[in-house]
């Protein structure tokens, strides 16, 4: 019996090594779908998109300044409406 067994050659061509398996096919599929070459970025349309593209993507500190200016303007408008317009050169006093 052992003599017949010794005659059979080792099964070298196992599935998975030669790329015939499903797993490797999926792996190849995944890699083939990955984008190649340098990243091409285009600013998205709209004001908000352009703003985000310009400041958020580069993580510049400008939005902090914009928020400060925006909050200050809102605050000034409110203050102006409520009391600052009554303080013009002591007109109303």
């Amino acid at each position: 019996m052992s003599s017949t067994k010794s005659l059979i050659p080792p099964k070298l061509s196992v599935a998975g090594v030669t790329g015939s398996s499903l797993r490797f096919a999926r792996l190849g599929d995944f890699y083939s779908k990955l984008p190649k070459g340098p990243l091409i970025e285009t600013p998205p349309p709209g004001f908000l998109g352009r703003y985000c593209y310009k400041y958020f993507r580069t993580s510049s500190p400008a939005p902090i300044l914009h928020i400060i200016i925006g909050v200050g303007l809102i605050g000034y408008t409110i203050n102006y409406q409520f009391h600052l317009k009554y303080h013009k050169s002591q007109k109303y006093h």
Partner: protein
Amino acid sequence: MFKYLTILSPLDQFEIRNLFSIDTPLLANINLSVTNIGLYLSIAAFITFYFSILATNHSKITPNKWSLSQETLYATIHSIVVNQINNKNGQVYFPFMYALFIFILINNLIGMVPYSFASTSHFILTFSLSFTVVLGATVLGFKEHGLKFFSLFVPAGCPLGLVPLLVLIEFISYLARNVSLGLRLAANILAGHMLLNILSGFTYNIMSSGIIFFVLGLLPLAFIIAFSGLELGIAFIQSQVFVVLSCSYIKDALELH
């Protein structure tokens, strides 16, 4: 004579005004108003929200500067919570503490912008925060320990004769936590803003008196700049202190000393 009339009250900046209100007989004369504090709290919510959105950096692995700054805040608060409450069980309270911290911090910072409004200088806001925290901690203590929670008021190893007195003192101090926690924050912010306003009022009067006085007034202006720098520090420190104390109160309720 006119000069005195034009001086703004330093407390004027803290006035709450209705910006937009609904007073309708349809809904049982309900009065819904958007006040300026509401507006600035909404702005703070928007900023907090967008700060967090920016910190995600479009789900990239590499952090940008926004994410790094928020991660630093995160790490700071996390270490505070972990050190104050408990290394393992304390983590449950981290989201609350972080939300508290970022809320107070952003509101403090918005309050620093000129012409804007300091929401955290209002006792109604800070007291509602502090009462909620302390009351929540008390509920937590009762839930964890039942009636044993009252042992919090008896210091360990005190002579029996002193117990009634000590319990009274401890109880008052426990009640005072409510007030002190909110008072600390609001008083700091309020005092800072008032100081800056009073200083600027004086300096403005000096500087508007003449050319020489204008130059002379640059010195107090430098002081104002320095004080506003101090305010920036206070904005951070007070929000951190609030979180640290909230953590220690929760820890007290959890562990009873």
